[in-house]
């Protein structure tokens, strides 16, 4: 058993699969991070992914072009995010509930549309959909072990890696990032500073929609080559937990998503040797919760420590003043 796991963990193929299973989670986690930073929880990420996965397949098979499929998928995913924004920000709906509702609409709606188009409820294999290309990186592919892991991945995997930089720049380098965080932290103060919170939240939702759209298209046009019902498999929900593990930062998202990816890839492997697939499939979700708890625990401890210090230093100052 131990030997088997050691063998798996050192194989390049395992890490190849890890990166591949991490990519979609990473994309949606980044989406969850940016909306959470703006103070709105995008629970509809799951629905965004489902619609993107389906529409990507339909558009690519209709046009014969995977890129048009990707574009259409991302477009519909943004649309879902905008609908969430409309209900949550314009109609004062509870954002979490309307997100959940949009996921239900997506769960039922994607199967409904798939069945109406193909007569099949489970899988879109009758549609001649295209797959997004894999990239071989010229020099890297020749490096012994690393080349096998990093080169030859689907293009979305690389886009996911770039998205980390992109979201990190948005959040930390650009003015809009400061506005996003201000809106999320204290909406009244943001308003007083002349920021329109509704607009900022819409912006964050659109970005998260794009990211979830990429993730959704990857699932049906790269990770697998079909749309299957429920293809998102709760990744949109996992993202909202991983967002907390990520500590609300883009770089943290890598670790949070990796945690899920490692377990997910390990589950694929352990299943192959016939080791109780049910228990192993539960692993990624269980580990995410565990990470979730540990991170909030550590954060709370640190926060308490900081407050204690602040308190201590302020009382010390007072004593000094009294001494004078």
């Amino acid at each position, binding site marked *: 058993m131990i030997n088997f796991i050691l063998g798996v963990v050192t194989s390049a193929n395992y890490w190849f699969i890890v990166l591949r299973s991490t990519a979609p989670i990473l994309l949606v986690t980044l989406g969850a991070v940016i909306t959470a930073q703006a103070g709105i929880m995008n629970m509809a990420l799951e629905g965004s992914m489902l619609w993107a996965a389906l529409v990507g397949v339909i558009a690519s098979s209709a046009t014969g072009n995977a890129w048009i499929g990707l574009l259409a998928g991302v477009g519909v995913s943004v649309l879902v995010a905008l609908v969430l924004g409309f209900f949550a920000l314009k109609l004062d709906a*509870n954002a979490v509930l*309307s997100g959940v509702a949009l996921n239900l609409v997506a769960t039922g709606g994607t199967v409904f549309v798939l069945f109406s188009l193909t007569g099949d409820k489970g899988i879109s294999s009758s549609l001649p959909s295209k797959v997004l290309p894999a990239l071989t990186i010229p020099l890297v592919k020749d490096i012994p072990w690393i080349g096998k892991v990093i080169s030859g991945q689907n293009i979305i995997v690389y886009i996911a890696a770039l998205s980390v930089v992109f979201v990190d720049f948005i959040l930390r380098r650009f003015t809009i990032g400061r506005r996003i965080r201000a809106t999320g932290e204290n909406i009244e103060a943001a308003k007083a500073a002349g920021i329109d919170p509704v607009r900022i939240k819409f912006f964050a939702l659109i970005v998260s929609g794009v990211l979830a759209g990429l993730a959704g298209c990857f699932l049906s046009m790269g990770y697998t080559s079909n749309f299957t019902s429920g293809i998102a498999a*709760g990744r949109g929900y996992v993202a909202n937990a991983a967002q907390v593990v990520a500590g609300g930062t883009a770089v943290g998202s890598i670790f949070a998503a990796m945690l899920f990816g490692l377990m997910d890839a390990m589950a694929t492997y352990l299943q192959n040797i016939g080791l109780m697939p049910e228990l192993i499939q539960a692993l990624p979700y269980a580990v*995410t919760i565990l990470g979730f708890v540990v991170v909030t625990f550590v954060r709370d401890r640190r926060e308490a420590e900081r407050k204690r210090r602040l308190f201590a230093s302020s009382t010390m100052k007072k004593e000094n003043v009294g001494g004078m």
Partner: protein
Amino acid sequence: MNSIRRFFVDRESLAPALVTLFAAVFSLLAGIVLIFIVSKQPLQSVQNFLLAPFLRSYNFYYLLIVMVPITFTGLALCVVYQLRYMSLIVDASLYVGAVVATAIGTQISLPAGIHPAVAMLAAGLVGGLIGLLPAILKIRWRANELVSSLMLNYVFYFLGSFIILYYLRDRSQTILSSLPFKRTFLLPRLVPNTQLHVGFLIAAAFVALVTIFLYRTRWGYEIRITGANPRFAMYAGIPVTTVVLYAHFISGFLGGVGGAVEMSGLYRAFIWQMDPSYAWDGVIVAMLARRNPKFVPVSALFLAYLRVGADFMSRRGDVAFEFITLLQGLIILILASDRIVNYFKERRLRKQVLKSQGESR
């Protein structure tokens, strides 16, 4: 009688009722529009969708059977929503409750009558303990209870099917099925030659129990106060943490009992190949009932009506059953939108203000 009069006279309580009605009618209309878009024989499909329970007596009894589990999850979510919590862990409570009931129904010998009762109690206790988890995570680590409950639902689903597969499976069957239940475990039928079982009455009894609990006992009152204003509840000396915990235990308990009732009432073995996800139906039932367990049977009836109609229509036509999930999402969207809910209230207020202004001039 008094409440009926209040319903018609007191316009304050009329507004939310109107919204509920609006959501129901809107979802029906949306369903009809969708049928017309995709169906090649729309009139036949719409007829099957709307009139299913009256076309076949089988459908009518099926409607009543469908009501049972969603009444349980609806009640469970009423308790949670009274607290203004969003945990969906009742899904896991119901699923694991069904697994626990299966273990008791297949492994233990008890006299008829006592056997299902013991199973329901055990399933309820396990379901209640599971229900506690998101609440503990929230209280102790401020983890969002919706997110953690959804994660835990996956974990418990896989755990439950693991137990069925490795400890309770009937290996002589080709499809996934547990060993057959002992005869003593099965609930009697309410109407001979139909599937309608005593579980229907058990569900009705729980509606009464939860209504009394929430509106006629101190503990229920504490739940409602804590939900309405936790800070006020704290200052009033209500042990808020304890209240949150026992409310979640009760909610999970209801889910667990629901799972056991389904098993002993409807099935001869555990044959769920997938998570039936009754918690999502419970969300709509509880929202349509406006968190009041008293109205749960009405909203469960409406949802069961939609489901039976969609099921009947999809088996006799070209519209996928899943469109019901789409309609359910639409219902929640409407009910969750405060602006829509307040629209009716605001309009009346505006009228009153305009009128009083006119008078003062």
